[in-house]
Every structure is written in structure tokens, then in C-alpha cells.
């Protein structure tokens, strides 16, 4: 028989065990509760930080900014300080920000491209200098903007305004979210070699460059998003964070992938892109990190860091919105040629030279001996001038009869017109160019002697027009201030074209003892007009808004044939 000590109950005690177990369970439960509170607090804090950071990414697109004046230094970029694409100068507010910075770099590129085209033509003159100045100005603005974007103090408010709206009650009833200044606020340059938000007009094979310039395909790309989003097919973008070398100068773009929303990114991806592209000393960032904490006095706080890649989700076209081309129709000239003797040649009679206009005129002109005709004392001709200019549009005056092989002029005008267009997807074809130049209202202005100056411009960013200054400024008021600006290149002349024109009649008075045989009788034609046309092109980079000037010189050479022979009685 086993003896049991008195102090031990032979039946045992479950209560103590239960109590102990209950205690443990309660402890576990409470611990789990607080653990959940902690995790929820962390989650709330992370959400708030994410929201604040996302807002930083969005708001950084528009503020901070650099202020550009409408005229003077850096004023050449005022016309791209707008989110609009309608070439409306009233939309421009002078603010150059992250949303618009690619427009500015693209415009500087176009100035340079036009200068390079003029270089190839040997007509650059001051164009290279102006393009260089524009690049310097562009860099200054870009560097200053980059500095502001990397200054976290300018972004804290954007963080707080949204972050504080998120609940962090797990921290405490009156907990708040605040930025933590310091190393958690950084920038990065992500998506290198990806597309920017600036597109070229035209398509691969023809982006309407000025003659003498060819785009390097390494500077261009289709969208790099995979799969390609809807609407991106056939679009050519400038490459971002990629040195675009133009004549030894480097131009830049910031990548904003087509139609991609601003979104959070992984820390590892952000960190790997904190170094800017080689060659860009002060790259404009497109990604931001933000660090904040949720806290309440007397309670533990939570902190978190988030990373955002921003994107304005707006596509622009490389353009010079307030660029124009000036077209000057010179006074048509008439010169007279007579036959002084058998065998010729025709000799010009300089003192008879004059001008005519854009309506028909019927002068009577007399050329005396010795140049009045072969054995003629004088020849008087009755002309009908203006057959080549009357009722002609600007297009016909430039390109019409006698017809001229000036494809180079046409290509220069086409290139400039497409640079005026700001709406993505819109291109100006040769047909559209000639239609604009054929504006019939200009015929009346020429015929009425009102003006011989016309302007090619885009009033709305997607069409071009050719009108007088008085009418143009009703649609493009900015023209009033800049129409007097001369192109910064030098002028080149195209070869003169000529072709047969109208006939004219006349009467010759023979020398004594001579008889007129040509014209055979009064009223019989004795001469032929030769119509001539010569065009001139003066290139402009667009730095001072003038993209170029066309001059058109029409002329009529009047050749009179009057012949008399000696009469033997």
C-alpha cells in the first residue's frame, strides 16, 4: 500500500491549471490585439505616406516652376508655357514646370535643327548663334527647375495636404502625419531611354525636317510600354534621358511613358535609377521619394517611406507655336528689248524700265533710234502688262507659270509650317500648304494695291493660313509684336524661270528711204512678252519667331521685232 502525503489531495486540482491556461490565453489575446493594432497602425501609416507621396508626384508636375518673361532673355520659350495645344498665347502663363519642360527642350531642338538646315544651305548667318543662345537659356531654366524639384522643402506641403486626410487612429485618436525632412526625400531618373511625352509630326521616313537635316533614328522611339497601349501605334516619340546630339550640342527629354499613370514604384527600382543619364549635369527628375511619420504625443509613432514615378499623361508635339513665315511679293518689273540691227542681238533699253502691278495695264512705249528697230527711226508698242500677275494668288505667284523647279523652297516652307503645328497627330501636307497659299482673299489685296506682304502662321495649332497682317492678327494677336522681326539667316536665290507670255502690237516708223516690213501692218503683233519669276528664301531658326522669309520677283521682258529695209526707187 502506497502512503500519500497529507498535503496532496488524492483527487488533484484542474482549477489552477485552467486559471493558468486562461491567463496565458488572455495574455496571448491581448498581445495579439496589440500586435494587430501595431500592424494596422503600420498599414495606416503606409497608406497615408503613399497617398502623400503620390500627391507629391502629381503636384510636382506643376509646382515648382521657373518663371519665363514674354519678351527678352529666355522669352523665346514663353509660347510653350502652356498646357494647351491651340497656339493661344493667352493660355501661356510663363511658368516652366515639369509638365512642360519637354516642350521647351523640343523647341530649343527645333531652333538648332533649322540652323543646321541653313548651315547645309550656306545661309545660316546668325542662326547658329541664336540656336546656341537658346540652348544656353534652355539649360539655365532646366537646371533651375531641377534644383527646385530636388528641394524637398518645396514638396512637403503637397505631401501633408493629402497624407493628413488619411486616418491613423491606430496610433491615436489625435495622431497626425508629418513629413520627416532629410534623406528620405530624394529624386531619381527612371525609365531611361523610354519615350518622352513629345512627339514628332509626320512618320518614320518623313518627319518634315528642313532640307539638309536628317533625324538620327537613335534619338527616336515608339512607345516602350508592353503591351503597347491603345492609341500609340505609329507615333514617334523623342527618347528620354538620352543625349540627343544635334551638331555637337546635347538636348534632353524627361521620360514620361505614353498614357502611363503616376504610380508607386519599388524601392529597389528607385534606388537603381538615382544616378542621372551620363552627360546631363542637372537632370530634371521624374521620380520622388518621401518619408513621413504618424505620431501622437505620448504614444509610439510609425514612419514609412514611399516612392512615386510621376507622369503628366499629356502628349505634346515638338513645335514653335508662335513661329511665322513672311512672304513678300515684290513690285513686278518690266524691261524692254529692241533689235537695233540685222543679226541682233536684242538690246535692253534701260531708260524705259519700270514696274507694273497686279491689275492689267496697257502702256504705250516708244523706243527711238538707234535702238528702235532695224532701220527704224522709232517703234511704238501697245502693251498689255499684268497677264502673269493679275488675279493670281500668292501660291500662283510663287510657284505658277512659267513654272519653277523650286522643290527646295517648298520643302523649307513645309518644314516650317509643320513646326507651327502643336496638336499631336496633325501634319501639314504639301496640298495643305498650297491650299493655304492659294487663299483667294489675297488676290483682292494685291489687285487693290493694299499690300504685298503676307504671313504664314497657325492660328490654332492644327491649321495654317496665309493672310495679310491686318487679318492675321485678329486670329493670332501675338503676330502684331513680332511681324517686323527679320529671319536670322541669309538669303538665297533660286534660279529664274521664264516662259512665253502675251503678244503685243505696235507701229514702226522707218528711216528715210526705208520701208517697214515687220510689223507687216499697224495692228499686227510685233512683239512677245516673256514672263519671268525668281524666288528667294531667307531661312530663320524661329528664335525671334521668324521662321523665314520668301521674296517673289515677277518680271516681264518685252521683245519687239521691228524691221525695215532700204527701198530702191
Amino acid at each position, binding site marked *: 500500500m502506497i502512503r500519500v502525503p497529507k498535503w496532496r489531495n488524492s483527487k488533484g486540482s484542474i482549477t489552477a491549471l485552467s486559471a493558468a491556461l486562461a491567463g496565458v490565453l488572455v495574455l496571448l489575446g491581448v498581445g495579439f490585439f496589440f500586435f494587430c493594432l501595431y500592424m494596422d497602425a503600420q498599414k495606416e501609416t503606409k497608406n497615408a505616406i503613399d497617398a502623400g507621396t503620390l500627391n507629391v508626384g502629381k503636384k510636382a508636375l506643376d509646382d515648382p516652376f521657373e518663371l519665363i518673361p514674354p519678351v527678352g532673355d529666355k522669352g523665346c520659350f514663353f509660347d510653350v508655357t502652356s498646357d494647351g495645344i491651340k497656339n493661344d498665347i493667352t493660355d501661356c502663363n510663363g511658368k516652366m514646370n515639369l509638365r512642360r519642360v519637354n516642350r521647351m527642350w523640343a523647341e530649343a531642338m527645333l531652333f538648332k535643327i533649322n540652323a543646321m538646315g541653313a548651315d547645309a544651305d550656306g545661309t545660316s548667318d546668325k542662326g547658329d548663334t541664336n540656336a546656341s543662345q537658346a540652348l544656353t537659356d534652355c539649360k539655365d531654366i532646366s537646371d533651375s527647375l531641377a534644383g527646385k524639384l530636388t528641394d524637398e522643402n518645396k514638396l512637403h506641403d503637397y505631401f501633408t495636404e493629402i497624407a493628413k486626410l488619411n486616418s491613423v487612429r491606430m496610433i491615436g485618436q489625435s495622431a497626425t502625419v508629418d513629413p520627416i525632412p532629410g534623406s528620405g526625400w530624394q529624386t531619381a531618373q527612371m525609365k531611361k531611354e523610354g519615350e518622352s511625352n513629345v512627339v514628332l509630326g509626320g512618320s518614320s521616313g518623313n518627319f518634315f525636317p528642313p532640307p539638309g537635316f536628317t533625324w538620327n533614328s537613335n534619338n527616336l522611339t515608339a512607345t516602350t510600354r508592353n503591351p503597347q497601349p491603345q492609341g500609340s501605334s505609329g507615333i514617334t516619340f523623342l527618347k528620354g534621358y538620352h543625349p540627343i546630339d544635334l551638331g555637337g550640342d546635347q538636348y534632353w527629354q524627361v521620360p514620361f511613358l505614353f498614357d502611363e499613370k503616376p504610380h508607386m514604384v519599388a524601392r529597389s527600382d528607385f534606388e537603381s535609377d538615382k544616378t542621372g543619364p551620363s552627360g546631363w549635369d542637372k537632370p530634371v527628375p521624374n521620380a520622388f521619394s518621401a518619408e513621413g511619420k504618424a505620431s501622437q504625443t505620448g504614444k509610439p509613432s510609425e514612419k514609412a517611406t514611399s516612392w512615386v514615378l510621376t507622369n503628366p499623361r499629356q502628349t505634346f508635339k515638338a513645335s514653335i507655336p508662335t513661329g511665322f513665315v513672311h512672304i513678300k511679293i515684290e513690285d513686278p518689273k518690266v524691261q524692254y528689248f529692241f*533689235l537695233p540691227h*540685222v*543679226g*541682233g*542681238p*536684242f538690246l535692253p533699253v534701260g531708260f524705259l524700265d519700270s514696274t507694273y502691278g497686279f*491689275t*492689267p495695264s*496697257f502702256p504705250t512705249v516708244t523706243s527711238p533710234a538707234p535702238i528702235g528697230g532695224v532701220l527704224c527711226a522709232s517703234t511704238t508698242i*501697245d502693251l*498689255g502688262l499684268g*497677264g*502673269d500677275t*493679275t*488675279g493670281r494668288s500668292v501660291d500662283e505667284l510663287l*510657284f*505658277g*507659270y*512659267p*513654272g*519653277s*523647279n523650286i*522643290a527646295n523652297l*517648298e520643302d523649307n516652307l513645309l518644314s516650317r509650317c509643320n513646326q507651327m503645328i502643336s496638336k499631336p497627330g496633325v501634319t501639314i501636307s*504639301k*496640298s495643305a500648304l*498650297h491650299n493655304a497659299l492659294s487663299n*483667294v482673299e489675297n*488676290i*483682292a489685296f494685291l*489687285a*487693290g494695291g493694299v499690300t504685298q506682304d503676307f504671313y504664314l502662321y497657325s492660328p490654332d495649332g492644327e491649321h495654317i493660313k496665309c493672310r495679310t497682317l491686318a487679318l492675321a492678327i485678329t486670329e493670332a494677336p501675338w503676330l502684331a509684336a513680332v511681324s517686323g522681326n527679320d529671319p536670322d539667316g541669309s538669303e538665297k536665290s533660286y534660279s529664274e*524661270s*521664264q*516662259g*512665253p*507670255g*502675251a*503678244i503685243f*502690237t505696235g507701229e514702226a516708223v522707218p528711216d528715210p*528711204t526705208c*520701208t517697214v*516690213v*515687220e510689223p507687216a501692218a*499697224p*495692228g*499686227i*503683233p510685233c512683239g*512677245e512678252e*516673256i*514672263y519671268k519669276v525668281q524666288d528667294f528664301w531667307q531661312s530663320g531658326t524661329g528664335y525671334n519667331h521668324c521662321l523665314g522669309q520668301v521674296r517673289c520677283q515677277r518680271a516681264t*521682258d518685252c*521683245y519687239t*521685232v521691228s*524691221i525695215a*529695209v*532700204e*527701198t*530702191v*526707187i
Partner: protein
Amino acid sequence: MKNRILCGIKNAAPKIAAVCAMTLFSAGIANAQQPTADVVERLRAMGVSKDMKSLPSWAVPPGTHLSKSIPTNFPVEVYRSNVTYTSFVNSTNGAASAAASIMTRDQPGVVFQFYQSALPRGGWATQVPSAEAMAKIGKQGQFFMIRGTKDIQSVNLTITANKGQPGSVISINWFIDRNANKK
């Protein structure tokens, strides 16, 4: 008596001489109005045909060829009514261009109406200046113009009142528009 006769002859001599000179001069003019064999020979030596239907090369504006008749294959219908004169000039270098000229006793308005239907009949797409432009141009009834295009061909046709005599001068300028197929 003798002195009176001599005095009379003396006074009349200048008048008689003048009449003789005028008679001889008039005879010369009368003869010159009809090309004599000698004149024809002189013209031929110059390279000018008797009927003036062709001129030597030195009497033609440089870079052109002249003929007094319009080729049958000229792509624009030629006006035939009351025609008093025709000529045709084509370029010999540079861009292909030509000008056909017709003088007619018909008034400009009549000719204009003819070509308003003749050009479309020939497959030409035509344009005329607007009424506003014509008002600015002026010369109402004395000046008309039509522009026509067909494929890469273009014509500019002007009709003006003949200054020297009743009728019209028609000028048809034709050329190949080398930019047409790019428009």
C-alpha cells in the same frame, strides 16, 4: 515781158521742185507698199520669209521658238471665230511652256463665254477670280481670265480688249506644273 517770165519761173521753181520731189517720194512709197523683188531679196538675205511667217533666230526672243500657226496638238481648244492673227511660241530651254496668241474681231466677253465651256469640255478643271477680286482688278468687260488644270498641266488664259482695233487678244499660257503631283 522777158523779165516777168523769168521772174515767174524763178518764183515757181521751188514749188515745182517740191511737187516733183513729192511725186517721186509718193511713187517710192507706192512702190514700197508692194514688196518688190528687190525688197524680197533683202528680206531673204536677212532670213525673213516673204510672207513673214517665220523670223530668223536673231529676231526671236532668246530661249523661245516662234511660229505663226498654233500646232494641231495644242491641248487647249483654239478660238476660230473672226480670227485675224495667230502665233505660237514655245520655250526651248528650262521648263516646258508655251504661249498661243490669237487676235479676233470678237469682243472679249464673247471669247470668255466660249472658253468657259470649251475648257471643261476638254477635261480642264477651271477657276476664275471671285467677283470681289474682279472688281478690284477693274477693266470690267475688257479683261477676263481663266485658270485651268488637268493632271500635271496648267493653263492661264487671259482675254483682253485689243487696244489698236475692235476685238480681243487671247493669250493662252500652258506649262507643265512639276509640283502638281505633289500637291
